């Protein structure tokens, strides 16, 4: 279970960006995850409230974009969808393919609430 470690690493990154940008809070975090990232999305979601507690992003929504597995065949050149343990070319069946998408675990974007001009926050 390395998802907590990955989630903590995510929060460190989010906090440092929020600080750089002088943000009051982080309202949304969008991450892109591929099935071949080695990260179990549900475990990451479970770890998120623990890792974000007490940070500038504790009320941020975690948005997960599921990225598809795609391979490019080195023999026939075509691109096709694939399964985690079946990365062969759908066109010609050859196994010599390159993964072009599907192993991402990426912080894609953040939505920040800025210090100046921000609406007064409702107390929880």
């Amino acid at each position, binding site marked *: *279970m*390395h998802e907590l*470690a*990955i989630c903590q*690493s*995510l929060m*460190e*990154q989010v906090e440092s*960006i929020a600080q750089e*940008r002088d*943000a009051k809070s982080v*309202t949304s975090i*969008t*991450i*892109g995850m*591929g099935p*071949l*990232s*080695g*990260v179990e999305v549900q475990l990451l979601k479970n770890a998120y409230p623990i890792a974000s507690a007490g940070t500038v992003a504790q009320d941020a929504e975690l948005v997960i*974009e599921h*990225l*598809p597995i*795609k*391979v490019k065949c080195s023999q026939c050149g075509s*691109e096709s969808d694939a399964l*985690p*343990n*079946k*990365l*062969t070319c759908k066109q010609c069946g050859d*196994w*010599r*393919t*390159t*993964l*072009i*998408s*599907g*192993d*991402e*675990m*990426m*912080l*894609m*974007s*953040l*939505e*920040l*609430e*800025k210090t100046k*001009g*921000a*609406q007064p926050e409702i107390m929880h």
Partner: protein
Amino acid sequence: MCDTCGCNITHGNESLIRPGGKLQKTESGKEAVTVLHSLLHENDHTAKHNRNHFDQHNVLAINLMSSPGAGKTALLEATIQQMGEGLRIAVIEGDLETENDAERIRKLGVKAIQIATGSACHLDAHMIHQALHNLDLSEYDIVFIENVGNLVCPASFDLGQHANVALLSVPEGDDKPAKYPVMFRTADLVMISKCDLLPILDDFDPERAKKYLQDIASTAPIIALSSKNLSGMNNWIEWISHQIEERIAYLEEHPVQSGHHHHHEHHDDSLTV
């Protein structure tokens, strides 16, 4: 993938980043920031730093990964005995608890550093960085990192190694690459270990293992080896020698900047490059 040149924009995510894509929307009073960094940005940064450190000293770093009990330590013992004085070896051992593996290596007169990860199921680049503080790399040609026995978590963490070796032991079954594609995809070499058991456990078919590896588009060479009767040992030593030659050739073409001053502060989580 790096985080600077845009190569991390893949077919999977480019539609999200394009103007008008999901990641572009912002409500008033808020700022949207496109980041596109790996979730393990900090780990990857430290891994790069470790690799640079190895390269400065012409040290080849090999990361051994497998499930627990696949024979990583036995492989290291056999390798040390086979190589003799030919190559100067150091070992970094990762386990949840105990110094047992490090002690086995030290008995052979080889420097071994034990990292006790506590409850952590993998080594990360920071742990390796700390271990390197206790290792004078100018005294070694090769550093083996024996990762925590686990076919899942170690696959996600770059340590700064030059090559990954995944062991698949005969008792585990030949379909492990299909069950753990993320791990086996990272392998630069797949070793079928404990192959002296092949005649007994004849339901393990090396050809089938090869087929499963092709299914995950692995181009890694496969070596069947027994640390017990030493069959396949020559292929393994040859592969290591080839890695060293390749590394030397690479470093001749891409020299490490000699002006890179390296000051370490010896407390946790402090990195000065």
